[in-house]
């Protein structure tokens, strides 16, 4: 017998009575506030930032101001040029040189300040989202969903994306004596730009 069949047979022999353990209906609990204010509060808690325009500033002007030293700015959105397009990166080795990556998230989750990215937003190179030093995420307020329950119930991406990441602020660690360090292995900062 293969290990597969042996494992399944043993599970069938040993399991508790399935009739005694019904599956509860899908839960839709918690605070249903899907506001931008709640999202921003959660985002701040997890170390993310809002890139706010100064007096009618465009996205590219705001990026130039915020990341003045950036040499390679990679764009994954049509309305912003940057110095290189994500499709042109080709390899992770090239992506590792990117200073700032600009992407658009299909939705955000107010409870967590999370944004979602998948291969649809990171064409040809999912690793670009983690190899870049900084990431700027364009997000529309209208795509905010209240919490994790509503996100999993409502968003089709969880069923269609082959790679789907919820990023909640930048990469972080507290593995050395409990001290919080933002920018561990992945992005050092994550900024949200609200779509006008």
């Amino acid at each position: 017998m293969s290990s597969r069949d042996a494992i399944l047979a043993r599970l069938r022999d040993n399991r508790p009575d399935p009739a005694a353990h019904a599956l509860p209906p899908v839960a839709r609990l918690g605070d249903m506030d899907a506001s931008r204010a709640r999202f921003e509060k959660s985002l701040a808690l997890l170390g993310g930032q809002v890139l706010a325009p100064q007096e009618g500033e465009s996205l590219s002007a705001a990026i130039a101001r915020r990341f003045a030293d950036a040499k390679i700015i990679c764009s994954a959105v049509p309305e912003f040029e940057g110095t290189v397009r994500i499709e042109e990166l080709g390899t992770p080795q090239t992506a590792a040189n990117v200073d700032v990556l600009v992407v658009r998230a299909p939705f955000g989750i107010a409870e967590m300040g999370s944004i979602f990215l998948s291969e649809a937003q990171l064409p040809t190179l999912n690793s670009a989202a983690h190899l870049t030093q900084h990431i700027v995420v364009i997000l529309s307020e209208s795509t905010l969903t209240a919490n994790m329950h509503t996100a999993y119930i409502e968003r089709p991406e969880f069923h269609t994306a082959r790679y789907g990441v919820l990023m909640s602020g930048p990469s972080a660690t507290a593995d050395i004596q409990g001290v919080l360090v933002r920018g561990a292995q992945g992005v050092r900062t994550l900024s949200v730009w609200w779509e006008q």
Partner: protein
Amino acid sequence: MKVKPVNHARAAEAFIKDTPHLTFHDERLWDLRQKRDQQMHELPEWQELRTLASQIKEHTLANLPEYLEQFEANAKKNGIHVHWAADGAEHNRIVGEILEKHGAKSLIKSKSMVTEECNMREYLEPRGVVVTETDLGERIQQLDNQMPSHIVVPAVHKLTPDVAKLFAEHYHTDPNDDDPQSLAWSQRLAARPVILAADAGMTGGNFVVAETGSFVVCTNEGNADLSATVPGLHIATLGIERLVPRMADLGVFVRMLSRSALGSPITQYTTHFRGPQDGSEMHVVLVDNGRSHRLGMEDFWTSLKCIRCGACMNTCPVYRRSGGLSYGAVYSGPIGAIIDPTFNERKYSTLPFASTMNGSCTNVCPVRINIHDQLYKWRRVLAEHHELPFVKREVMNMAGRLLGQPKLYRAAISGTETALGVLPRFALYNWLNPWGKNRELPHPVKQTFHSWYKQNRLKTKKKGEDA
């Protein structure tokens, strides 16, 4: 040769002697417990979430064969290669073969307790595969050649100077630089080239979704995403108990995992893998390694609900004062003490006794595992299987007999109204000896309650009756 039981008490004693490490360890984990409490207070539905999480997990475990088959079918449809491993050896062989087929000589991996169970690094390294842990805490433990001491914060028993020393040795950094920010930066700089050059990447999986054939990995550093997306080959090691039926069930679990573990609302990264990218390959290895056997243990199967948040460790007053390594096992703390004996009853026979059974672990468990009840039940099982030390068995047997015979019992304490005659000399001078090492004995008294009562109540009552 018989395996020797882990001497938790002795290891804990050594841990306690090092005051700076002990104090930090206790305070740090207590702080995580406090942060977890704050998060709980912010969610009025917390207890309802715990109940749901428990019900979903119990349902899934009772229907595990069907859900595993459903997962397998969907994962294959998505282009994932699915493997099954009955035990650690088979898991390691499967991973070794995948790597060999691709000519992969370097493997970067994120934290996975299952690969620790399997001793995978020890298997792969002699076969010419360089395995690099990419989680900072796990990497620290790898460099120090130690097991993780905690399932979420693997190097929580270390202080900054310990890390500075290790990094100086391996990364040639300044041994006197003990700033956590700069040490973490050193790890980033050291890890990047290894990640970029790796032939293969490996992750674990926090949740496995039957409905979609997906698995979910929760991390804070982004190292799992790097390990999975940079090389063209991703292998995920998944414990078979990690299944949930529906994608929407994740709402319940993701809301509680990081809140329970670290007191943060969510991990920085919650990543859903449903299939390989074009030009890449994705494998999952479904690992049993004793789980199907545990499912048949009436009193202990619910330990399979565990989502590895570590909340029981953070709250455990014994764990906080003994350190994870003192358990001598992959899983430490309260959850370890009820899981480890299923791997090796004799070796881990001491662990269910490394507890005061205070019950705090049960209260913080997000999936409502009755941890302290299981500790109590394990003690019975171990006693019945003769896995208790001889002296303890003898003392209990003797005490049991004495306490069943009031006249003998009274005789044993009469004449010595003072205290310690109560205890048979054998017990006192052998087994109970440690009491006085760091504690005073109770003060002797002139009269037991028993003789006070006879003197002050029975006599007066009789007088009353006479009158």
